[in-house]
């Protein structure tokens, strides 16, 4: 008699704690977003930017905030969401707390695909997104195929090692292509290092449909994915099809990573840090991780972007440098944990 009630109460408490967490994280995301609008490398200081936000300000400040910093911040939010969610998904599907799109070669695959398309003569922005997504899909499938060879997938650390080697290879091929073709090298030099600088709102509009599509896909597979975390047999017993879930999951990851890479270039380590923090905050359930990844990813990207603007002002720094400085220690911490947390 008391048992269902207590379970209900505990689930209510969990839900409300998740809600509180989300509220806190959303508030801090808002804070970081406003900070990103206020701070910058140029002459427009925080005070001038604030007066723009409250409806006044000079023309110059208005231009800087509305046409430079606002698109950048919005794109940072979208890219952060995509990368954080993709990281959580790929960790769930590989059952590996170290899996990360950037480390496993998914981002490198989409960068290589874009480089190939450019060398072959393509240049249209819309083409770039679908090409990047196809490249990401190829990278994903290659990594998952590798995971099946000789039990690599059973050893999380070995899989990450294979992925790191793969992304090194793809990166070298990309640089080789860029050496061959100077024109495309100039076109994507500032893209291939990973940065949010100089992106326009049209870029965001171009990736929005695929982000929405991936969102719908994820809503559809979230419950089966949580069942899959309990083991393949449990998932089959609950009436799910593990093979299809995995395939859909990989497609969602490819769409998300491809879109993020098409806009911002390859950025590593976000998909590692975000699920790591989310699990530390709310436990191992994939659905909670996915919810928390939505604000956590943008927070990380925006913080990194603010630092990238300020550290070497007036020039810019690649975003991936900052994320690597944060993410590599997390990687080491996870590897050194005596028992890798099983996913």
């Amino acid at each position: 008699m008391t048992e269902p009630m207590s379970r209900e109460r505990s689930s209510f408490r969990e839900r409300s704690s998740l809600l509180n967490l989300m509220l806190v994280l959303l508030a801090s995301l808002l804070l970081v977003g406003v900070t990103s609008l206020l701070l910058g490398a140029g002459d427009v200081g925080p005070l001038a930017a604030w007066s723009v936000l409250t409806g006044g300000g000079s023309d110059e400040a208005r231009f800087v905030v509305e046409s430079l910093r606002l698109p950048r911040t919005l794109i940072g939010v979208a890219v952060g969401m995509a990368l954080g969610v993709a990281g959580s998904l790929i960790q769930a599907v590989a059952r590996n707390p170290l899996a990360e799109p950037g480390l496993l070669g998914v981002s490198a695959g989409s960068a290589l695909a874009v480089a190939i398309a450019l060398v072959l003569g393509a240049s249209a922005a819309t083409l770039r997104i679908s090409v990047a997504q196809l490249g990401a899909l190829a990278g994903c499938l290659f990594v998952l195929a590798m995971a099946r060879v000789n039990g690599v997938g059973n050893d999380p650390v070995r899989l990450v090692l294979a992925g790191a080697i793969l992304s090194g290879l793809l990166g070298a091929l990309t640089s080789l292509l860029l050496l061959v073709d100077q024109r495309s090298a100039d076109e994507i030099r500032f893209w291939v290092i990973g940065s949010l600088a100089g992106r326009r709102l049209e870029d965001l509009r171009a990736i929005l449909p695929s982000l929405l599509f991936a969102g719908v896909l994820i809503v559809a597979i979230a419950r089966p994915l949580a069942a899959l975390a309990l083991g393949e047999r449990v998932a089959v017993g609950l009436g799910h099809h593990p093979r299809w879930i995995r395939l859909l999951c990989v497609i969602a990851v490819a769409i998300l990573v491809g879109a993020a890479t098409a806009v911002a270039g390859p950025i590593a380590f976000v998909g590692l840090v975000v699920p790591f923090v989310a699990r530390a905050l709310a436990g191992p359930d994939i659905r909670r991780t996915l919810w928390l990844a939505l604000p956590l990813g943008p927070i990380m990207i925006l913080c990194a972007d603010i630092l990238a603007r300020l550290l070497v002002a007036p020039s810019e720094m690649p975003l991936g440098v900052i994320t690597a400085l944060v993410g590599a220690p997390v990687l080491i911490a996870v590897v050194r944990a005596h028992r890798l947390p099983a996913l």
Partner: protein
Amino acid sequence: MKTRTLTPPACLMNRPEAGVTPPSGSWRLSWALGERDYSILIERRACFVCLGLLVALLAVSLLSLCLGTLTLSPREALAGVFGHGDPVNAFVVQELRLVRLAAGVATGAAFSLSGCLMQTLARNRLATPGIVGIDNGATAFAVASVVGLGTSLAPPPMALAGAATATAITFALANDVGTRGYRFIVTGIGVGAVFGALTQLLMARVAIDTANAAYPWTVGSLNARDGAALVWLWCGLAIGLVVACYLSRAMRILRFSDAVAQGLGYRVRACRYTALVVSVALAALAVAVAGPVGLVGLIGPEIARQLSSHRGVSLIASALSGAIVMVAADLVGRLLLAPIEVPVGIVTAIVGAPFLLWILLRPAPRFQS
């Protein structure tokens, strides 16, 4: 099995003691110096492998002297080396290609020897300085010295300091997980990623001209080798080779468990530290010349291992095959897209990464269990 004793040159006195016959497949050289008798065993196969590799290295070197924007016949190239023949040829060969060749041979041998030593002492086939982040540490410090970060040290000593720092961090982090498994490698990759990011940070902070001066260090190229650093490297390589020869017997035993090595009378700790110091120093000096081309440190020893027998740790053969790989990769990089030069780091990455994947993905060999 037949055994054969070598008739030594006149300066060496051969004293075959009764009952002491060398094991099959090797020569025993013995001589007396003062009161004591000395003898060494030379494996016949290792000897032939080294000779073969030396011939191959000479052939590749000659090719590398001949080919380029200006194609020379072997005879012209050799004449150029000694300053005879056409003055233009002599200039091209002596001033451009010979220095480049010297840099290629030295860096290849140093990376490969360093990789072989570290693989043996960590008992881990993937543990080469390039993979566990030591090259990146050296690169970060060398770049710091070029972009002038309040220090006036030249790149080689700075690279040494950086490599030592990265080694200290990686090995300290591995202290409780050990160096055998994949965790050590991924820890090293993490350390390397941090140093790589620091390098980028340094490059981003300075003016574009200074950044261009430091650029070769970030991709790995023999194009911008610096004379002083090359001298440092050759000196280091000479010392390293002598120490490596001295250590080679101990390295052979270090592959077994510490208890076995100690029981056989080796000072395991001292051997391991010496090998580590030599390995890290060689990697750092090579980085100061050519930047992080660390995959050579994995390919070279692997070729040597395939050629030699299972018994020994083939340090000399590793150094030779590393030099061959480096010179050949540089040659390919120069010719592939001429007149554009592909940095040697990219060539080795494209060749080495599939090879690395093969090491990782093949079925686990039984004798390693």
